[in-house]
């Protein structure tokens, strides 16, 4: 086996992603250090790492997000690299800088790149500079209805009118044409004034039924940049992805190629030296830049399944300064993979459902991969995110992947807590799923229609 890229990796995370990184490190010959809060003493990432350091009480801000304790844990164990996973400190510039200041390697982008992509405006600037299409809009608050109409004429109807300080779908209105824009403008500003004490509104082109398509990318220090195909993550509940797949189905080849090329172009133009994801919205035959996530993502698994590339190992090797181990034409997408996120949440209200898992059986068999960090009698803590397990199925084609997913979901037993599985079983059984007839608002609309 080739020389390990690092000697000892501190994993600044918990749950399934901590286990995922431990597994990658074991294959690379890197020793591992887990960190844990007092609530996670008996967690699997603590059990399976070579060493473990308690970094604080249960609350994340005092433990997993507590930079001095996490850095000190790396210091006292002599780690030479730190993997942040996703969430927690993964996109924290201060943390990335502290890791470097302590002579360790941060498994991720440079602090500069974190800054570029952490800020929405600079990320859009980077995309614009790379020639990547952006969703047109006012950019900031519009002064009055006349300015709104001028912008809308450029953006094209329908447009979305959005309270600057709104959120969660509140204070938004769609205008089909100029007359309707003039009509709803005053209502929306008045509502915004009443609800948020600020009447400022934005204007943006409205996409009625966009798909969320994201490209997995990777770059090295030698200017190399490739994509590893796309994922379709349109099935979201209030912007939270719950089913993802690779490749995206029913995407016109020309459009698919254009999106992939745009992502590689963007990565190349920013001197990107790690793995990451470029996210886009796709409506009809158009696509628009959304954001770049310069880290490993929850749904990286489906890309691993269809490309055969271990993205976490690739990420670690790139951080060590290795060149990309393959050319673009060596990346082959083969088969179809679907991931279902099993969250400890009420399937209809999405209210978190922490507690003890009293019964647990994960499916196995051909084409089934489980990334989880739970077991029977494990406690899903109320302090952290609600992801319990990822069920990933892979088959030669999408139809067979769906057939596989159906039995795998039926075999997945989690007792003692509520999970999102009942909702996902219905979604996957719905003809719209097999027909790829869905977009980012499908689930919310479906749930809204279900309520009465």
């Amino acid at each position: 086996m080739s020389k390990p890229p690092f000697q000892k990796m501190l994993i600044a995370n918990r749950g399934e992603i901590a286990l995922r990184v431990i597994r990658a490190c074991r294959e690379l010959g890197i020793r591992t250090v887990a960190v844990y809060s007092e609530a996670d003493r008996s967690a699997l990432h603590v059990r399976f790492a070579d060493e473990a350091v308690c970094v604080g009480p249960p609350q994340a801000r005092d433990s997993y997000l507590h930079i001095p304790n996490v850095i000190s844990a790396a210091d006292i164990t002599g780690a030479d690299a730190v993997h942040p996973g996703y969430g927690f400190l993964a996109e924290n510039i201060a943390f990335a800088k502290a890791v470097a200041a302590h002579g360790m390697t941060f498994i991720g982008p440079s602090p500069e790149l974190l800054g570029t992509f952490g800020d929405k405006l600079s990320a859009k600037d980077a995309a614009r500079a790379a020639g990547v299409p952006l969703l047109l809009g006012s950019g900031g608050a519009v002064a009055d209805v006349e300015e709104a109409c001028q912008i809308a004429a450029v953006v094209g109807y329908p447009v979305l009118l959005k309270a600057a300080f709104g959120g969660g779908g509140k204070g938004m209105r769609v205008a089909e044409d100029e007359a309707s824009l003039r009509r709803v403008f005053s209502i929306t500003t008045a509502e915004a004034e009443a609800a948020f004490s600020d009447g400022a509104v934005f204007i943006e082109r409205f996409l009625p039924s966009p798909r969320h398509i994201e490209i997995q990318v990777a770059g090295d220090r030698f200017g190399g940049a490739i994509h590893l195909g796309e994922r379709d993550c349109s099935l979201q509940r209030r912007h939270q992805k719950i089913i993802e797949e690779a490749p995206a189905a029913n995407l016109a080849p020309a459009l698919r190629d254009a999106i992939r090329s745009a992502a590689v172009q963007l990565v190349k133009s920013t001197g990107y030296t790690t793995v990451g994801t470029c996210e886009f919205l796709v409506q009809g035959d158009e696509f628009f830049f959304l954001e770049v996530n310069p880290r490993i993502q929850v749904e990286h698994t489906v890309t691993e399944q269809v490309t055969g590339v271990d993205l976490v190992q690739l990420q670690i090797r790139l951080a060590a300064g290795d060149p990309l181990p393959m050319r673009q034409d060596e990346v082959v997408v083969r088969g179809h993979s679907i991931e279902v996120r099993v969250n400890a949440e009420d399937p209809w209200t999405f209210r978190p459902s922490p507690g003890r898992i009293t019964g647990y059986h994960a499916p196995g068999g051909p084409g089934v991969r489980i990334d989880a960090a739970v077991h029977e009698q494990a406690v899903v803590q109320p302090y952290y995110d609600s992801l319990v397990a990822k069920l990933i199925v892979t088959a030669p084609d999408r139809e067979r992947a769906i057939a596989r997913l159906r039995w795998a979901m039926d075999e997945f037993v989690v007792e003692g807590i509520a999970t999102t599985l009942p909702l996902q079983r219905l979604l996957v059984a719905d003809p719209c799923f097999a027909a790829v007839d869905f977009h980012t608002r499908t689930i919310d609309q479906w749930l809204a229609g279900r309520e009465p």
Partner: protein
Amino acid sequence: MDLVQIEELIRVMRKHRVGEIEFEDAEIKLAVRFHPAGVALAPVVSAAPVAAGSAGPAAVAAPSGAVVKSPMVGTFYRAAKPGSPPFASVGDRVSVGQPLCIIEAMKLMNELESDVAGVIEEILVDNGQPVQFGQALFRVRPA
């Protein structure tokens, strides 16, 4: 088995008037005994968990000292710098707020002050040793 379960076990013992249980498995070894005075149990009427006090059986394992724990992750030093005398040694009397040691974290020296007054009974960590959050550093007999 945690405290909640142990208390539950004690409840079960009281309910059924069991005098003594010894339990051992791969992880723990546990013995619970009510005092044989016998009478102690007889007058129990209420079913409630306590009533204990009166006789004396509740004089359960009073921990002999308070423990000062590390509030951070870092490296433990007994003195301000190499060669200096240690802040505190076994047998020293310490007061609340008195520095006990230094925890070095992120290249900063953090003085740890005592939150109890008493006599140092034991120093649980060697000089220069790494410590985790919540790790016991000193045992102090409160005075």
